Structures are given as structure tokens and as C-alpha cells.
């Protein structure tokens, strides 16, 4: 869903953003009362085209939460904040080449792959560590079972194609 439109901050643009945000929000609004579980906010934000880190996500959530956190986020609070985020084009997605370079940093000897153990170690011990579930999920798609490794260039290509 790569969108390369240049938005002017016209009223129509904002109105359109509002519609988009509301739509995404409503997918998770199970009770049809303009609230979503706070645990789903990350999914909503990311599916709107943003790619925040966990830390950035927590900051965002803090912005849209109630004074006394209820476990639910209301559309009224979410909408203006999210509109700003989109207008400012914050948390832009990561381009393919940058992603590739990140993998290469982890593969300094330039083998072209990471072993399963290495991947697990990096993903669960470094950065903003994965949960066990996240790790397993990534492994299932990434690891080539014969070599027990991830050929990251191919992996990236596959994932990016799928994304569209």
C-alpha cells in the first residue's frame, strides 16, 4: 500500500485523512462505541502507514490515553493526534535499502545470511526485544529450513512484495 501522494494541508486532505483514520479505527471498534482496546492502537497506527518504534508508540499512546487510563482509547482523542502524525509524516516507513544495511551491520563478514541462532540472539536481546511469540512468527517465515539460516536479501524482497 505504498502511497506517494504529496498532501497539501487543504481541508479536503484533512477530511480525507479523517475518513481513513476513522475507518482503520472502526475495524477494531468491536463495541461500535468509538473506543478501541489500547493494545490494538499499535496495529491501527502502523496500518495507517506509520512505522514507530515501541518507544515512540508508547509516547503516542500516552498522548491519546485518558487522564486515568481505562484500557480504552477514544476516537475523539485519537483522531486529532493521528491526523497531526500523518500530516507531519512522522514515523515514516523504512526504505528497503536501509533495511538491507541494517541486516548487513549484523552480518559484518558479509556472508549474505544470518544463522538462526544469530537472528534469535539479536532480535531477543538487542534493540527493543521481541517476545517469544514474535520471534517464532518471524522465524517461521524467514528461516530456510535446510540451511537453518535467513538469507536476508531474499527475505526482504519477499516481504516487500507481499506488502503490496
Amino acid at each position, binding site marked *: *500500500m505504498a502511497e506517494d*501522494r504529496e498532501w497539501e494541508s487543504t481541508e479536503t486532505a484533512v477530511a*480525507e485523512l479523517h*475518513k*481513513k483514520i476513522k*475507518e*482503520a479505527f*472502526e*475495524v*477494531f*471498534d*468491536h*463495541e*461500535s*462505541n468509538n473506543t478501541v482496546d489500547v493494545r490494538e492502537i*499499535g*496495529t*491501527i*497506527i*502502523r*496500518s495507517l502507514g*506509520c*512505522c*514507530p*518504534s*515501541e518507544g515512540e508508540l508508547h509516547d503516542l499512546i500516552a498522548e491519546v490515553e485518558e487522564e486515568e487510563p481505562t484500557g480504552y482509547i477514544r476516537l475523539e482523542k485519537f483522531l486529532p493526534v493521528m491526523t497531526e502524525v500523518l500530516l507531519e509524516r512522522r514515523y515514516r*516507513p*523504512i526504505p528497503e535499502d*536501509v*533495511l538491507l*544495511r*541494517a*541486516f548487513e*551491520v*549484523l552480518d*559484518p563478514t558479509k556472508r549474505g545470511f544470518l544463522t538462526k541462532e544469530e537472528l534469535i540472539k*539479536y*532480535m531477543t536481546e*538487542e*534493540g*527493543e*526485544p*521481541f517476545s517469544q511469540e*514474535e520471534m517464532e*512468527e*518471524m522465524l*517461521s*517465515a524467514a528461516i530456510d529450513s535446510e540451511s537453518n539460516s535467513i538469507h536476508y536479501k531474499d527475505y526482504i524482497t519477499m*516481504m516487500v512484495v*507481499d*506488502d*503490496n
Partner: protein
Amino acid sequence: MGSGTSNQHHFAFQNAERALKAAALIQRWYRRYVARLEMRRRCTWSIFQSIEYAGQQDQVKLHDFFSYLVDHFTPSSHNERDFLNRMFTEERFPKDLEMEKCSDYNSIEVPDNYTGPHLSFPLLPDHATALVEAFRLKQQLHARYVLNLLHETRKHLIQLPNINRLSTCYSEEITVCGDLHGQLDDLIFIFYKNGLPSPERAYVFNGDFVDRGKDSVEILMILFAFMLVYPKEFHLNRGNHEDHMVNLRYGFTKEVMYKYKIHGKKILKTLQDVFCWLPLATLVDEKVLILHGGVSDMTDLELLAKLDRHKIVSTLRCKTRKQSEKLAEGKRKASQMSSPGRPTPWFLPMSRSLPSSPLHVGSHKAHKTGRSSSIPCSASLDRKELSQQVRRSVDLELERCRQQAGFPLIREKEPVLFMAEADSDAEQLLQPTQEEWKQVVDILWSDPMAQEGCKANTVRGGGCYFGPNVTEQLLQKYNLQFLIRSHECKPEGYEFCHNRKVLTIFSASNYYEVGSNRGAYVKLGPALTPHIVQYQANKATHMLTTRQRISRVEESALRALREKLFAHSSDLLGEFKKHDADKTGLITLSDWATAVESVLHLGLPWRMLRPQLVSSSTENVLEYTSWLEDLAKEQLSHENIQSSVLETLYRNRSNLETVFRILDSDHSGFISLDEFRQTWKLFSSHMNIDITDDCICDLARSIDFNKDGRIDINEFLEAFRLVEQSCPEGNTSDGPQTTNTDDSSCSRPGAH
């Protein structure tokens, strides 16, 4: 050395920092990827659900329409009268004598070369187990045994109360399973994983055993067999699909006729009765209530326990009469208000049951504020006055339908307004009261909702949405702990709601598509703590990654959605044009989303789905005509077919099939040309299609391939199964292709 080490440390530190950043980047990217997968999954689910529920609504509306016609249409010729009489007038549950005849299986011979399972009665546990094994090996049970089994089943069911009681004192564990919908693999899996039924292992199957899947017959045979073998421990509840009217649409009737070409009719007739005798609910330890749909704020367990459940033949209110013509005439006029159970059809301006616009239901999440009862409800106005008003608007409506259908005008007869004593005693005994019917509909069709209150279930067209307070009220009133119900497909096979007081359990895995959802069953021990077991009965899905699974299901959903879009091509075109005042041929993508929703009313997140539905869009705009053409190309293998007839047929395909099956009351598989024409006229007047009589005749003639005056239902439907059809060249219409309904020309369908 020192500086060397510190340099090393420096580099090491830098490297570590870089690694950390790199890892963080990859994680960040990956989490976004997963989020988008999740969003796709949710959207896909919405697509399936909204299409499914829209279909259910259609069914109810169609049914209401025909019921209404049957009641109010004053035929102008005896042909018409006969025709209408035949619709929906079936053998009422036959009296015992007829019943005997029907299930007279003894006369059916089982040939020597039959290799399927044999049954002898009384059934033994081994027989039931052998059945499971035989079906697993894809054998088919002979019609004689089917009928025999059904006969015994009926005898057993008759003795059962409406609400069965189970106790964990006797069977230590009770396993409750939800909808199976003809998916034999799931049933076999459950028995494999959980164990076969036995005195120590009680089972409750909570309705919807049939329809949609391809092995409904086999599932019924197994369930009935085990019920006969372990009557105290094996229990069945009726679901909304244990209903011959619903079966007409959703595939069970078709399956039976296909598998049992000679005796299918008998089997269906018997089943119709057996379904009525299925108990309505099961109560475990007086604490856990198990029923198929849900409850309403009016649910009265005492009434439910007392009523004669057998009277409720179909929850779609198929009113059945079979009487002399004269009586029928009088009845129709009197039945308007005197019959206690006649629902007010939705399209009458009087109707308060449903919103006046037929498709105005929105997403299944958009609960309409409304009355706290299920559809319909009888008005409490002065009956005579109401009757007059009804009569007037009925006449108006009739006129319109009649004109559209091309029937000759007849002179208005004097309205006969009298509060006749409703029906003869005999007739009355055969019908449930309004109250009784509503109680049963509620427990078979309702769905829980998150908000408090109780509203009409406009999405399904029957039952209601019940909130947590309704549940609480009921549990307290009858001193219960929680409710187990089914009726709704859930991605994980189960779902708790209402503060864990309501458990939905759904046992048909991969219901919408391979990989769409898990199935589940729940076990209750003496402590009554629910223990859920999930599964997915398809080896293939285990091999797929989440991503692949979601892609497959998604593709299936999108295909279904594109089909729906195509079926509404004309309406969509009209709507797009409204947004294109300057006639540029382009609309913005935003307008596209608005337009599509206003036509389809599915309540889907169109902006999210757009990239998958609209492949060709430059900038921010879409050339809508070519988009529609692309859609058509996908659905039709023959170019240039774009006629309102075909499109309408496509849109109403499942309706049509249902209608034909209703018409074909003897399940012969044939309807006469005349019946076809009459049907089409009625149908088109309801569906707002302007088609000339000639067109209909042409259509009918061209479908009657062997010119014997009969149309084979299957052939007819096949002829219009446009996706696979490859039309011979040169069979397009001679005239202009118009989708303009003013011009009543229609192109010849590509029949050969």
C-alpha cells in the same frame, strides 16, 4: 597496548551501538509488517461476515415477500391461484399414517452389491462407531438405513423435553460442540482428539449440523446414531439451520437430493419432521444453559419448556395451509389481522419491524436503535382500523406489483373486513402462537452484543441482539452461572463475552475458507469450569505461515467481494456518475469509497481495501468505467456480455436457486416453463427489474433445451453460472447493450 585496547573497546562499543540500532530498526520494521497483516486479517473477516449476513437477510426478506404474496395476492385466474397455492403449501407435518408411509423403509431393498455400512436396530455402540469409520472412508449409507435411522430418531426425540437436563454427577465430563455445518472432518477430528461418546463421556451438539459443508447427511447420521445408542449422555439442540426452509438455500436439500436421487424426497420429508422434534436447549447441573443462538429480554424458560416445539416447523414462518380453494380465499382476506402470527412485511409503510429501505442495514456493527423485541411484532392498534389501513396499503402495493409483473388489472373486490374466528380448531392446533414462535426464534437466532439493551437483529433478519444486562437478568432469574451458545463463527473457535457469562463455541474450522478460523469445543467438569480445546482440521494449514494463510483467505474474500461488486455494476455506475458531474469519466478514490458503500451497504473499510480492489489508478483518481469493465471481465469469460438481466441474475443467484427449489415442491428437479415464467414475473416485480414479457418468454424457451416444456433446475442454474461459462460467439444481443432500466430491451443470454 593500552591505547590499542581502548581503541578496541571504542570500536567494540561503536559496533555494539550500531548492532543495537540495526536490531531496533529491523524490529521496528517487522512489527509494522505484522500489524498490517493483522489489519488485513480483520478486514478479510469483515468481508466474509458481512457477505454471509447479507445473504441471511436476503433469505428472510425473500421469504417474507413470498409469504406476503401468497396471503394477499388475488389471482386473476385459476392458474395463478394454483401456482401461488403451491408455493409454500406443503404437506404439513403429516399425520401418523402419512408419517408411516413416508418412513416406510422396509420396502426398500438393499442390493447385494452394496458395500456401505449396514445398520440393524436397536443400534449398538459398535454400529455407531462403524458408521464413523465408514464415513471416514467416504462410504455412503443406504437410503433404507437412513430412513430407518430417522424413524428411530424421531421416536426417541418425541419423548424428550424441550429443555434437556444433564448432570455431571453421572458423566464426569461433558463436551459441548458448536456449529459443524456439514464439515465431517471436524466431527471426526473431535471424536479422535476427545474420544468417542460413551456413558462416561457426554456430548452436547449445539445445533447447525447441516448446510454449507458437503457432508451434512453423514454428520446427522453419526449424531443421531450416537443419540440412540447413548440416550442419556448424548444430546442435540436445534439450530436455526435445522429447518427445511433454510436448507433450501444453504445446500442441505441439494446435498440430500444429490446423494439420494431416488429416495431423497422421502428423506427430506422425514427430516423436516425430525428437525421440529429436536430439543431447544440443554441445561447442565441446573447451572449452565446451552442453546444455539442466544436470548432476548423476553426469554421465558418456563414458556419454552412448556410449548409444543413440534409446531414450529420453520423459524422463517412458513405458514402452511392445505385446504379447499374456497376456504383459502376466505382465509386470505381474513388472515390479515385475525391470524395471530402474521408478520407485517418489511416493505409495507406500516411496518415497524424493519427500516423501510430494504438494504438499509449497514454493517453488522451498526445496531439500529429499535424496539426491544425480535422481528416482527404485532401492532396493538384497533384491529379493525389497522386492518383497513393494511388493506389499503396492501392494495396499493398489489397494484404496483401486479402492473410491474404485467398481470391484467382486475376489478377490486369488496374488502371483507370481519374478525372471523381465526382458523378452524384443527388449524389452530397446528400453529404456534405468536409468543411461542418469538420465543423460539429468539433462542435460535439471537447474537450477543457489547452494549446494554436488547435490539432487533436486523443483520440476520430474525432474533435480536442482547446486551450484558439481558444476560445478567436471565442468569439471575433462573439462578444460572453462564450461557453457552454457538451461531457465530469466531477466528479462534470460541469467544467469551458479557464478562465471561456468555461463551460462544464454534466447531467448524476453516469455515469461510481454508485457514480462516479455528474450531473449538468446550469441556465441563463437575466444577463447571469451561476448558476449551482448539483445532484446525486441515493439515495443509499447519504447513503455511501466518502470512500465507492470511493471503489465501484474503484472496478468497476478495474474490467474493469482487463478485458482489460486479453484481451491482449498474447501480455502481449510476452512483459514480453522480460524483462525476463534469462527466470526466473519473472520480476520486475517496468518492469511490463513498459510492461503493452507498450501493453495497456492507459497512466495510473500503479505503483500506481499495488497493486490492482497484489496481489501476493514477494519482488520486479512478477511471470508473474501465474499472467496472475489468470487474466484468473477471466474472465473465465472454466479452461484451453486460446486460441487466444477467447482472441481476448473478446478484440474485442464491435467491433464484432457493425460489426454484421452493417451486419444485416434489423435488423432481424440474419446473414447467409456465412456472418459470410466473416465477420470474413475480421475482422481477420484487427485485425492480423491468423486463418485458417477451424477454421472459425468450429466456424460458432458450433454456428449455430439449423443448419438452420443462426446465431442469440445475441446467438452468448452470446456464447462468457465468464465471465458468464460455459463450459461443455471435450470441450477443442484437440490440444495444443497455443497463438503462427505462429501456426494457434485454440481451439474449448466451444460452445455446
